[in-house]
């Protein structure tokens, strides 16, 4: 079942056409990688999908619903979550508060203006669970701004996992992580992590080809705003134009 459908998206500003005729879909539980050279427009695709940018043309559908013009927060409540390439945290709040905010974001709770945030025990337990999964439990009460770069990236990731999304958009999830942490993340993505037992669909932007070829079931190659190839890892590896344009540029890899 197609959980995310993207149809003929075009986005540009000024004189620059960043994305043209972008069409693809993601099935429930599918892991799809979006690769391409720098400046290809990968983050822009995520921005359009998450609602931070409005495309000039095209449609985005989540679970069959047209969300092209829906505001960002509304998409989150439908099950779309996203992480950022540069860690986007709440610096002056504690690590625990960061996660609690992520958990409360899509849940209507009673007495939410008067009851202490730590009194919602199930949320705190879930937050601790999430923190434990990325080994940040010991930093629970530290302010986010005092975390090391790697710790911030890990916090960044669980903030997007926290809402138990149906579709997860990840922007360079392993940037800044050690190879050990990267493989740990890859394992996390491969496990079925959804609370309801459903697999999370993941669309991730990456330069880290190890991650891509370990996790991705399908790969989209973006080049100057156009998808020049779509397919399984084997197909992409064998694709001549992709090799020339993208893989060929990183010969050392």
């Amino acid at each position, binding site marked *: 079942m197609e959980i995310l459908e993207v149809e003929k998206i075009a986005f540009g500003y000024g004189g620059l056409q960043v994305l043209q005729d972008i069409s693809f879909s993601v099935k429930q539980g599918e892991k799809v990688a979006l690769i391409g050279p720098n400046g290809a427009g990968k983050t822009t695709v995520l921005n359009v999908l998450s609602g931070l940018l409005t495309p000039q043309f095209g449609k985005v559908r989540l679970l069959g619903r047209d969300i092209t013009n829906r505001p960002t927060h509304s998409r989150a*409540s439908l099950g779309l979550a996203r992480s950022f390439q540069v860690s986007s945290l*709440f610096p002056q*709040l504690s690590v625990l*508060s960061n996660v609690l905010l992520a958990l*409360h974001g899509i849940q209507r709770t009673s007495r*939410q*203006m*008067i*009851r202490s945030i730590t009194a*919602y025990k199930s949320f705190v337990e879930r937050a601790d669970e999430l923190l434990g999964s990325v080994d940040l439990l010991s930093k629970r009460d530290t302010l986010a701004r005092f975390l090391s770069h790697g710790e911030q990236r890990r916090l960044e990731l669980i903030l997007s996992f926290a809402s138990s999304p149906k579709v997860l958009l990840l922007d360079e999830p392993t940037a800044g992580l050690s190879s050990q942490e990267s493989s740990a993340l890859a394992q996390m993505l491969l496990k079925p992590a959804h609370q309801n037992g459903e697999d999370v669909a993941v669309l991730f932007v990456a330069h880290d080809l190890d991650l891509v070829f370990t996790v991705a079931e399908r790969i989209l190659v973006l080049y100057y705003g156009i998808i020049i190839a779509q397919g399984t890892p084997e197909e992409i590896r064998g694709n001549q134009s992709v090799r020339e344009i993208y893989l060929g540029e990183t010969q050392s890899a």
Partner: protein
Amino acid sequence: MPGRARMSGRKQLAYFAPLPVILLFLVAAPWFLDTPIISLITKVLCFGLLAMSVDIAFGYTGLWTFGHAAIFGVAAYTCAILLKGADITNFWLLALIGIVMAGIVSAIFAAVAARSSGLYFLLITFALGQLVYSVAVQWKSVTHGNDGLWGMPYPHIGFSLSSETYYYFALIVVVLCAIVLYRFTRSPFGYSLMGIRENEIRARTMGYDTRLRKIGGFVISGLFAGLAGILYLYFNGGIAPENVGMSASGMATIMVIIGGTGTLWGAFLGSAIVLLLQYYISLLTPNRWPIFLGAIFIASVFFARGGVFPWLVSLWRKVIRYGDTGS
């Protein structure tokens, strides 16, 4: 509370000890302090509440408001006008209408300014605040212009208050408000406002309707500012445009900054510091007080970074740790 280092139960108790002590002091004060000082403390309570409301908008939500005195003033003027013009004398009714007016005005301010942030939010609230001020000055038939509206009796809350008992009334109201606001800041909604302050885009991707919440936070702040205005109206016996304009709004913001932005209690402390300074310096040089006020503004920027309250808190923590022989 999330973000606070864990302390032993006994230490936690000691940590919060100053609060009841201060409360006790305030309750007992009329017995050993002179009337003018009690009067000053009442003023501190009223403006402390205003400063706390400003902190909600400014410190917690990150909305640079420079028009809160206008909201404060709208509530006060509404009550005064209704009392004198429409002869409504029921205190509770007046207060309710006043607070509702404050809420409406805050909603207008916020709706107009919500799309902007930082500097532009400040300029908009500044302009709107001045608009309200202009109305207060110009609409002479209703507001008596620069003279203001005077002759407010003490409220009748089942029994008539007097200048002695009004102090306790104000104290109780402000303490209750402080408790409510404190709980609000630790609630999920309160935290979401801080999240919006810290990183609005992230908050949006988490599912928060940030525009609505900014308006909501601002309105809640405005309701308490209105209540502060009503408290002040009855304390002062009247209200005048000078309590409504940029000068008053600036003062409220400065109180928050001196005390400590985003700490809630700091706002109170800031109010006490500014008003105490004003009282004593005005005794010495009544005409040159603005120079000192200006100097306080400037000094607070360069010397009170972070605010006096956090500084006192860290001092107190050191005291507790020093006195603890265990861990």
